[in-house]
Structure formats: C-alpha cells, structure tokens
C-alpha cells in the first residue's frame, strides 16, 4: 500500500515519482539470510539507479518475457499446472533463481484456472481445459460489443462493462445484466430497484458461484504469494509493475476484436475516437488505484495494435496515440512510470514516444531498430530489449552471446539499459539463457 505524503498536492511529477520509488525500494522484506539481504539490497539499489537514470555499475538482465514458461518447461511441468497447480511451480521457480541469480525476480503468473472454469470465462482457452495439457493460455478474440453499442459504452464505460460486457465474457455472470442503473438510486422507493435482482434465484445463484470462484482465487493468490515471498526473501526484488493497456487496445482486444476495430477506423471513426476518449479517465483512476494498493511504481503496457504493420502513421496519430498519451501523462502527473512492452516494430513511432517527459517511460522493444532507439530515445528514457525469441529458440549459444554483447556495447554510453527479450521466448536452453544473463556482467 502506497501512502501519499502530506505535501503530495505540492509535489512535482518527478517528486511524486521519487516518493513512489522510495516506497517500493524501502518496502519491508523478511530475508532468508544476511547474504540474501545483502544481495537484495545490491540488486534493488542498482535497479533504482536504472529507474532514476543515474550512473550505476552495469546494466541488468531481466528475462521475464517467457522465463515463467521456461522455468516450468525445464522441469517438465505442464502448461495446465501453471493454471491449476500453482504450488507445483514453487520449487522449480526457487531453483531457477538459485541457479541463475537473476538481477530481477521472475514473477509467477496467478492464472486462476478453477475460477475461470466456475465462471465459464470465454476470452481465453487454457491447458487442461480446451488447450492440450502442455500449453498454458491463448486469447480467443470475439465481438463483445456490437457496433451499435458504442453509444452505450461512451455514455458510461463502467455500466457497459458491468451489465453488458461481463455477462458475455463470463457465462456465469449473465444475471449482472439485471442490475439497476445505479445513478438513479435516489428516492426511498429506489431501494426496490437496487435490491430486486439480489432477491431473485438466478442472481443469488450467480453470487454463490462468484463467492466460490473468489475462494478458489484466494487459494491461487495464497500459493503464488507464498512462492513470490520466498523468492523475494532469498534476495530477488521485482520490477514493481501493474498491467495495463491503451484505450485502443482495450477496445480492440476485448470488445470489438482486431478486425472489428480496424474496420471501425473506416466505418465509424467518430464512435471509435469517442470511445477511446471515454476510456481515459476510467483507466487513469483504475491504474492510480492499483498502484496505490500494490505499491508498484510502474504500469506495464502490453502494446498490441499500434505497431508499424498494423496501421499507418496517420492512423496511429489519429486513433491510437492521443488517448494513450493522455493516460501516460496523467500517470506521470501521479508519479507512475509507464513501462512499454512494444510488440512488433515501432520504427515509425519513436518520435511520438519522444514527446513524453523525461523519465516517464521504460521502452522495451521487440523488433524495432535499436540503433534508432538509441539515437531518438535513450537520453530521455530507460531502454530495454530486444533479444529475439527466434534466437533463444533456434540460435546457438554463441549467436545469443554475440547479439547480447552487441546490445550491451550499443547502449554502453546511455543512462539506463535493461537486457531483455523481444518477445516470449518459451523454449531455449540453460546455456543460452545463461549467455543472456551473463552478457551484462562482463
């Protein structure tokens, strides 16, 4: 939990950022040993200097893009276990940290398989459910908002989510559509409208299912929390991230589908723009709230549909960038750093990112030209990336080493660089991963 200092309202964005980073860095940890404590402090101090873009002894290597899957794979653990048997990953994860001594902890993802089963979640399929046991999860796109419903979303995104989206995305939540329109609950008799659904058997059944799903979720969070507590206690700090997306990607990934939203750019551009605008205050409030609750100093954007190949620069600057920038600037005002995981290539968008204030971003690239990245962005922002997943999978140890060495050399004179993968690598060997990790330690 992040508690704002009394003078918060008088603080500048960078002072607020410092307050959040201080709280994250100083969060109490029960260490497993004095050695673990010393290692933790060394690691988090280095990480903090990277966040601050201050001089430090060496870059860090962060294998989080795919390490989770690899930790399981190297011990023969099935994808379905990552969704249903979270305790099974504990020892392999601890062993991985002991073996590889990463600069940053590899987080365990709390996929709640049993809760998803109970709610009949539609947006993903997973191992042990509709995917084979060896796979983890994959997204299933659908149209969860019809074109004629843009007006409902724009008028009230939260009500749309509660009464229209959630009942479609989770079959068991269908009765949520019976809920009253809350802002009309005012006069004495309006209590009737508020409570009627709660008295009806289908709604009550839904509530029981939600409680059961909630109980299952608590078991998952308990198991994962215990594991990550042990990882931290052994001396490995995390980056401190909450996951978020851009307004355009929320609308595209979740409500309209890729084809739907890309066609909307032509068929109903004004609705799409208004929906992106309507999303901004909702997202900002939500991310600030999550950052306060979790004491995480940064928000991780998983960026999808704004990449070079997805749309023209003109379309990007009309549909994708303005509302995303508004969200990032609002977070910057609140002292929250935006960590951008930029899938695909962003060669045409670097100048847009450069519009953001200094230290507001961590830019983690996949297929973007890192030489241009250095030129355009490395003075202002922390840079991460971009070891290809294909190299981790099909390249030799020497090739991985050479690629990483080149990146280390390239960013040697810049304020802050994080060695990272361009994409989920899933499949590699210990030798290649070690070459990746060691590349920053020479």
């Amino acid at each position, binding site marked *: 939990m992040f508690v704002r200092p009394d003078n918060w309202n008088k603080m500048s964005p960078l002072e607020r950022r410092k307050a959040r980073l201080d709280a994250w860095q100083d969060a109490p940890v029960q260490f497993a040993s004095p050695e673990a404590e010393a290692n933790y402090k060394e690691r988090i101090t280095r990480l903090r200097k990277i966040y601050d873009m201050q001089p430090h002894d060496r870059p860090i290597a962060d294998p989080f893009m795919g390490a989770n899957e690899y930790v399981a794979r190297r011990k023969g653990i099935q994808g379905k276990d990552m969704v249903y048997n979270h305790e099974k990953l504990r020892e392999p994860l601890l062993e991985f940290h002991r073996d590889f001594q990463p600069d940053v902890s590899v987080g365990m993802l709390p996929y709640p398989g049993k809760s998803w089963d109970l709610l009949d979640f539609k947006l993903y399929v997973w191992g042990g459910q509709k*995917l084979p046991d060896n796979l983890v999860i994959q997204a299933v796109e659908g149209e969860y908002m019809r074109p004629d419903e843009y007006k409902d979303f724009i008028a009230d995104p939260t009500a749309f989510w509660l009464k229209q989206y959630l009942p479609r995305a989770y079959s068991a939540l269908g009765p949520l559509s019976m809920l009253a329109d809350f802002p009309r609950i005012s006069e004495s008799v309006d209590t009737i409208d508020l409570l009627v659904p709660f008295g009806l058997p289908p709604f009550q059944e839904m509530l029981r299912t939600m409680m059961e799903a909630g109980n299952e979720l608590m078991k998952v969070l308990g198991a994962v929390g215990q594991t990550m507590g042990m990882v931290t206690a052994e001396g490995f700090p995390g980056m401190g991230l909450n996951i978020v997306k851009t307004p355009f990607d929320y609308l595209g990934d979740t409500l309209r589908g890729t084809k739907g939203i890309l*066609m909307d750019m032509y068929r109903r551009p004004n609705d799409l723009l208004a929906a992106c605008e309507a999303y901004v205050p909702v997202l900002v409030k939500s991310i600030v709230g999550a950052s306060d609750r979790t004491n995480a100093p940064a928000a991780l954007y998983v960026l999808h549909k704004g990449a070079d190949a997805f749309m023209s620069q003109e379309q990007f600057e009309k549909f994708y960038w303005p509302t995303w920038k508004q969200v990032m600037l609002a977070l910057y005002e609140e002292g929250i750093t935006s960590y951008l995981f930029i899938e695909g290539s962003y060669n045409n968008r670097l100048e847009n990112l450069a519009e953001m204030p200094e230290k507001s971003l961590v830019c983690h690239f996949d297929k973007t030209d890192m030489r241009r990245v250095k030129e355009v962005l490395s003075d202002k922002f922390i840079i991460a990336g971009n070891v290809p*997943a*294909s190299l981790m999978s099909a390249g030799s140890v020497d090739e991985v080493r050479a690629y990483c060495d080149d990146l280390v050399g390239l960013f040697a004179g810049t304020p802050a660089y994080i060695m990272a993968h361009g994409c989920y690598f899933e499949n590699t060997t210990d030798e290649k991963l070690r070459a990746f990790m060691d590349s920053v330690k020479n």
Partner: protein
Amino acid sequence: MSQKLIDAITGMREEDALAITNELLDSGVAPVDILNACKEAMEVIGKRFESGESFIPELMLAGEMMSAISDVLKPRMAEEAATEKLGKIVVGTVQGDIHDIAKDIVSFMLDLNGFEVTDLGVDVPPAKFVEAVKQTGARIVGLSGFLTLAFDPMKETVAALKSAGLTDVKVMIGGGQIDENIRQYTGADAYGKDAMAAVAIAKSWA
C-alpha cells in the same frame, strides 16, 4: 465506369464500391468485367501494402468489399468464370496455435492472386496438412504461427510432409516471430514477413 469502381475500392469507400457495382450491373456491364476491375483495384492495394502506404486495415476492408461485391455478382454469373489458376496451396495455422487473423489475410491474398487455396483453419496437426496435400495435390504449403510455441509444430509439420514422401512440396512459413533462424530450424523452404511476401514466394514456386 470501371475506373470509378477501382477508385472507390482503392479509396476505401466501401458503400460507394457496392453502389457502383450495382450501377455497373444495371447498365449491362458483364460481371466478369466487374471482377476484373476488382482485381485491378486489389493489385493497387497490394502494391501500396508492399511499399508501406497501406496497412492491415486496408487489406481487411478490401477483403470485406471483395466479399460483398462477389455476393452481388455470383447470382448474376451463369457460371464461374473459368480462370486459369496458378497452382494449389494448402494453408493453416499450426498445431497448438489458434490465431487466424494473419493466416486469413494470407489466404485471401493468395486466392486473389490466382491460387487455389485450401485453408485448414487453426490448430492444425501435421497429419492434417499431409492429408490435405495428398487430397488436393497441392505443391505448396503455407504454415502460419503467431506464438513462439509454433516453432516446433512447424518443424514437425515440415518433417511429416517429408516423411510422407511429399519431398517435392515447398513449404513457406510466416508469423510475428518468424525469421531466417526459424526457417532454418523448421526446415521450411522460405519465410515471408507479410501477405504480399507470401504471394511473391508462391508465385516464384508456381
């Protein structure tokens, strides 16, 4: 008049394109001539895509327009215009991967460029590719995969085709994380970075 249709399609004016199609039909233009105009428009869009002037939204919207126009034309055409096909291709997203968007665009562009495409859908096991190649007599296979987990199923599919004796079948692969490393790893004959690259590769093999 046909130029008006070409301009509407390449200008991404969906409603106009359909209205002009109907006008052309009403004025007695043969459906096959309208189809040819559509193909000409698609060539323009394809070239713009290659040169970085058009992007996925334009390919998708063009696909929508083609489909709507062909729905109008089909009942008016006494028989399908017998066009010479460049060759047969089997296309699919490999086993374990359920992503279809890029694969659908590739299928569409191959079809439009004169190939007879058998699209096996997503999560396609190697044996199904082998079976489809045998059934259709296709000499080209296109394997799509969005996720990094697609690397191994691609490799297995290439191996399955070879071990089924289909050694003269050429395989091209594509997807977000596919590059020359993965082409070598899977044993595929070529990889393409986008739908137009897939068309160029297929044409070079046809």
